């Protein structure tokens, strides 16, 4: 996966003259016409260049050719010698290298053709496109090396990070529940349980049950309540009825006990 992205890169910042290849840390700057190239050097050569444009640029720089007035004959000769050598040694060449060879040969032949004077004004130099591409490629080759020199995370700086305190607890967003969810749950229970109707639920009955919970809670904190403390005048008649029903229901469910020490005396509520 990341081997491609994190592979050992050849030195980027060196512009010219580039070594032909690096073999076991040693530069190999060979000329095919007069020197033997060790086979492993050729293998590295293929990997050292980013394709035929990069390789051509290398040849141009090495021979100090003028890129805008490209000596097609010589550059083609140089290029072909390397390509032939590599093919002789049975190295698998990327197709782009062969396409470039064909292009060079074509440009060469077009330059050798006799020119027609009447067409001269409109005929474009056959080298123009290649030179344009070489120059364009070189711009981005330089841009890539500039990019490589930028201060970079994990190499030139590291993100500052602190651990979380020991008391850290994730912030949990609790699930939403709608009234409809609640009613639908209730409805499900009702459908399942036939006799649920006996525990009829009405608004009034709910008030009673709420009051039952309230009285129980008060009893839990105070131990006992006087009967009169369970009624609040502000609630009006309806409130009095609700409290009364709640007390009756609590007694019926044996949750509280009512005691009266003497006739007409104060009635006390306490937990059963």
């Amino acid at each position, binding site marked *: 996966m990341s081997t491609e992205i994190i592979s050992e890169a050849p030195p980027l910042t060196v512009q010219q003259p580039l070594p032909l290849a690096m073999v076991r840390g040693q530069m190999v700057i060979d000329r095919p016409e007069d020197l033997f190239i060790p086979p492993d050097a050729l293998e590295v050569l293929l990997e050292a260049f980013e394709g035929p444009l990069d390789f051509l640029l290398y040849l141009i720089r090495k021979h100090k050719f003028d890129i805008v007035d490209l000596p097609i004959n010589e550059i083609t000769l140089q290029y072909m010698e390397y390509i032939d050598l590599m093919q002789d040694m049975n190295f698998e060449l990327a197709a782009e290298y062969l396409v470039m060879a064909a292009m060079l040969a074509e440009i060469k032949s077009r330059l050798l053709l006799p020119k027609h004077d009447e067409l001269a004004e409109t005929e474009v130099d056959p080298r123009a496109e290649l030179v344009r591409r070489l120059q364009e490629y070189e711009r981005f080759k330089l841009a890539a090396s500039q990019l490589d020199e930028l201060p970079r995370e994990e190499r030139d700086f*590291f*993100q*500052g*990070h*602190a*651990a*979380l*305190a*020991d*008391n*850290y*607890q*994730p*912030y*949990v*967003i*609790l*699930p939403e*529940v709608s*009234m409809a*969810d*609640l*009613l*639908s*749950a*209730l409805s*499900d*229970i*009702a459908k*399942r*349980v036939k006799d*649920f*109707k006996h*525990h*009829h*639920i*009405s*608004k*009034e*009955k*709910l*008030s009673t*049950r*709420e009051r*039952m*919970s309230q009285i*129980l*809670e008060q*009893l*839990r904190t105070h131990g006992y309540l006087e009967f009169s403390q369970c009624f609040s005048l502000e609630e009006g*008649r*309806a409130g009095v*009825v*609700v409290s009364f*029903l709640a007390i*009756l229901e609590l007694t019926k469910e*044996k*949750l509280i006990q009512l005691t009266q020490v003497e006739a007409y005396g104060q009635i006390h509520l306490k*937990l*059963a």
Partner: protein
Amino acid sequence: MANKINDLQLIQLLEACLFASDRPLTIDELSDVVLADFLLTKKRLQQALKQLTLDYQGRGIELVLTAKGYRFQSKPEWSQYIALLWPERSPKYSRAVLETLALIAYRQPITRGEIEEVRGVTVSSQMIRTLLDRGWIKVVGHKEVPGRPGLYATTPEFLTYFGVKSLAELPTLPELVPVGEFFNTVGMTEGSIQ
């Protein structure tokens, strides 16, 4: 190699390393790896770490020595705000939890046994825990039967969440409201309650 480093540089380097590292660093790692190139006593290193600890007093983070080495960590008082950066959505409540809640709301005060009786299935402690943790139910008493089971009721938070002032404001299921029957039982006229 034995390079020199002054105290200020030493503190800066230690600070940069401790912040860049994603794990605590021991004194040995600092001295043998990071500071391998420098001529330095362990004592000087310890003094620098002490100074660095002091430098962060009164800041939002602190340098602490854990069992695994030194590390910077956020001060406890800011944890709840940091947590806001990574909210975790907890899963929706199960049908069982919703039914239990509905029964507690409409039949309170009610014991777990009574809920089980109506629902016909076991009510797990986990479900009750979920509702207690949410603050929607509480124990309002204990039923005086063997085991003294807790009596559950809804809380004011429950009412607030559902936007009602009292349980009476909760909607009812039309098919479940035999109003007449109710009033017959307790022998009252409908008019008496609004």
